[in-house]
C-alpha cells in the first residue's frame, strides 16, 4: 500500500548515517517518516526497493537494506555514483547530514518470495555492496519470531578487500551465532585480515552447500553472478531454487515508464527478484 498518487514522494528525515567502507563512497542512510500515515502505509518485505527522491536532483531506485522486523525506520545503503555517469541523487545524498530531509516513493517491486523460502535451507550469497537486500533478508529470517520458519541459514559474503565489507558489526555478530553459518571472504586480504581469501564463486564451490531442500539467494556484481550461478547449478540446485535480483535503469518504479524491460518483463514491477528458471526465459538484453 502506498499513497494514492504513486509519483509523489513521502517526506523522510535522515536520522543516522553510517560510513560503511574505507573508501567512504558507500553509506547507509536511516530514515524516519515525517508523517505517521506514510510510515503505516510503507509495509515492505526484504527484496523490495524504493525511489530516493531529492527535488532538483531527481530520483534513484535503491534496495531496502533494513528489515520490516526493525520498526521505526527504513534504511538504505547507497553508493555514490559518478565514476562514469554523473550520479546527481547519490552525490547529493552523500553530501547531506543527519537531520536532512528527502523524499521516498515505495515500497516498489516484488520481495524475496518469503513463503517459498519457508521450511527450506537458505543459502545467501552476496558480493560487495549488492548485499543490501540480502542483509534485509538475513535480518528478517534471524528475528526470533521468524527464525523457526526457516531451516539452516548459510551466508557467503565477499568483498574485494576487508575495508569494502558492509555491515561489519552485524557480520561479526552473525559469526558468533549458532543458528546461522557465516562465511566471509575477501578477494585480497591485508596485514590484519585473519579470515578467508578467495573469490565468491570459488568459496561457494569449497563450502558446497547441500542442494537438499535448499534455495540459493544470490546478489552481486554481474561478474560474480555469472560465475556463481553455474557453481550452484553444478551442486545440484534446480533453476527454480536459484534466485537473484536484477537491476536496470528505472524511473517510475511501477511498470509505467517503459524503461526497465527485459523482454516482456519490467524489472521494477515484475521483478526485481527472478529465479534462474525465469531469467532463462528472457532474452539476453540486460
Amino acid at each position, binding site marked *: 500500500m502506498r499513497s494514492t498518487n*504513486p509519483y509523489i514522494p513521502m517526506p523522510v528525515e535522515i536520522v543516522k548515517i553510517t560510513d560503511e567502507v574505507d573508501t567512504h563512497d558507500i553509506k547507509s542512510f536511516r530514515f524516519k517518516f515525517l508523517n505517521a500515515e506514510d510510515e503505516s502505509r510503507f509495509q515492505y518485505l526484504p527484496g523490495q526497493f524504493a525511489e530516493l527522491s531529492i*527535488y*532538483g536532483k531527481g530520483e534513484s531506485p535503491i534496495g531496502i537494506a533494513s528489515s520490516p522486523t526493525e520498526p521505526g525506520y527504513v534504511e538504505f545503503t547507497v553508493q555514490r555514483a559518478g565514476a562514469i*555517469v554523473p550520479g546527481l541523487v547519490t552525490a547529493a545524498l552523500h553530501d547531506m547530514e543527519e537531520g536532512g*530531509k528527502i523524499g521516498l516513493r515505495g515500497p516498489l517491486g516484488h520481495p524475496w518470495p518469503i513463503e517459498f523460502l519457508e521450511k527450506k535451507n537458505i543459502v545467501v550469497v552476496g558480493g560487495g555492496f549488492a548485499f543490501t537486500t540480502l542483509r534485509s533478508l538475513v535480518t528478517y529470517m534471524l528475528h526470533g519470531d521468524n527464525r523457526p520458519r526457516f531451516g539452516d541459514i548459510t551466508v557467503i559474503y565477499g568483498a574485494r578487500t576487508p575495508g569494502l565489507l558492509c555491515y561489519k558489526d552485524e557480520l561479526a555478530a552473525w559469526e558468533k551465532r549458532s543458528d546461522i553459518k557465516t562465511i566471509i571472504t575477501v578477494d585480497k586480504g591485508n596485514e590484519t585480515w585473519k579470515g578467508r581469501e578467495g573469490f565468491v564463486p570459488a568459496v561457494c564451490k569449497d563450502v558446497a552447500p547441500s542442494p537438499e531442500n535448499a534455495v540459493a539467494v544470490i546478489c552481486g556484481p554481474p561478474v560474480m553472478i555469472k560465475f556463481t550461478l553455474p557453481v550452484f547449478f553444478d551442486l545440484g540446485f534446480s533453476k527454480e531454487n536459484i534466485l537473484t535480483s536484477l537491476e536496470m*535503469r528505472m524511473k517510475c518504479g511501477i511498470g*509505467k*515508464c517503459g*524503461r526497465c*524491460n527485459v523482454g516482456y518483463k519490467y524489472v521494477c514491477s515484475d521483478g526485481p527478484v527472478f529465479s534462474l528458471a525465469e531469467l532463462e526465459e528472457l532474452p539476453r538484453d540486460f
Partner: protein
Amino acid sequence: MLKKTTVNQLSDLASALMEKGTLVAPVREDAGFQFREITDAKRVDLNFHNTVISPKSVFFPQTEDFVRYRTGRPMQEAEPVEPQGKPLILFGVRPCDVKSFEIMDIHFSGTGDVDPYWQARREAAAIIGYAFDLGAPAEPEEFYQTLGIGAADPEGSDIFMVRRGDDLLLKSITGKGEALLTGMGGLAGASADDEKFFDDTVAAGRDFKTRFTCVDAEVITKKLEDLFHNTDFWEKASNACLSCGVCTFACPTCYCFDICDETLFQQGTRRRVWDACMFTDFTLEASGHNPRTKVYQRLRQKINHKYSYHVRKYGVISCVGCGRCTRYCPVNIDIFSIVEEAMKA
C-alpha cells in the same frame, strides 16, 4: 441514437460541443493537421487524412507536471500537482487512433498501479470517432486493416461519425455518447436510409484494404522471439536508423517517459516528459553499464516491444497501423516491412 448535420454546419456542431467541455479537434496548420484545443469553432477541419502527432497527447501530454518545489526550501513544502480531468471532447478521431486508447488503457489503468493522470483525463473525456472517405485509397504507409482494425470501426468511440455526401451522421455508441447527443441542439433526426448507410460504412471499413500481410499476434510474437539473437537480421533492419526517436513521438501507443527535475531561478518542477527507447542513454545505468548501446539493439527493442513483449504481457499488439512512424522517419525505415520480413523468417 443516430442524428445528423451537414459538413457546412461543422462549426455550429463544434460550437455546440464547446459548450459541453474543452473541444480538441483537428485543425490545419503549416506542417499538417494537428489535434488542438479549439477556441475558434471555424478552425475545426475534417478534411484531414491523418494528423502529424497522434491524439495520445490529449491524455498523455508531452510534459506532465508532478510536483512544484523551490530550491533551498524544505521538501515538505513542495506542492504536488494532483491529477485533474476536465470535461473534454476529442473530436474527429480515426478508428485506429481510437483503438490506441484502449491499448494504452490496459497499460496505464488496467493493470498494476493506476496512473492517476491518465485515468483522470480519460474518464472526463468523450471521444467522437470519424470514418474518413472510404472512396479514397489508403495511404501507402497505413496498415491498420492488417492488424484487424477497420477503417470505420465505431468501437471505443462514444459517438461515431460517418460522412454521407454533404451530411455528417452521428451515432451514439456508449451511454456517455448518447447523453452528449441528446443534450445537443441543432441536429436533425436521421432516416432509416441513413441508418443503413451507417451500418454499410462500418462493414465496408472492415474490408478497406491497407497492406496485405495479415499479422497474427501469436505468430509474430513467436517469430520475434526466435529472431531475437539474429543480429544479422536486426543490423540489416536498422542499417539507416538515426536513433532520432521521431517514430516513438509520433506513435499513438508509445508511452515511455522520463521523470526529470527542472530548476530555474529557484523555482523547480518535477515532471514527466516523453522519452524514447531509441536514445542511447535511455538504458544507461549509473554504473556505466548500458544493455542497449547499439542502434540495432534499440530498434529491436522497439519492434519487439510492440509486436512481442506487449502481446506476452497484455495480450494485444501495441500498434494500430496508423503509419506515422513510417511517414515521418527521416531515413524511410518502414516498420511494417520489418514486421513482414520477420513473418517470413
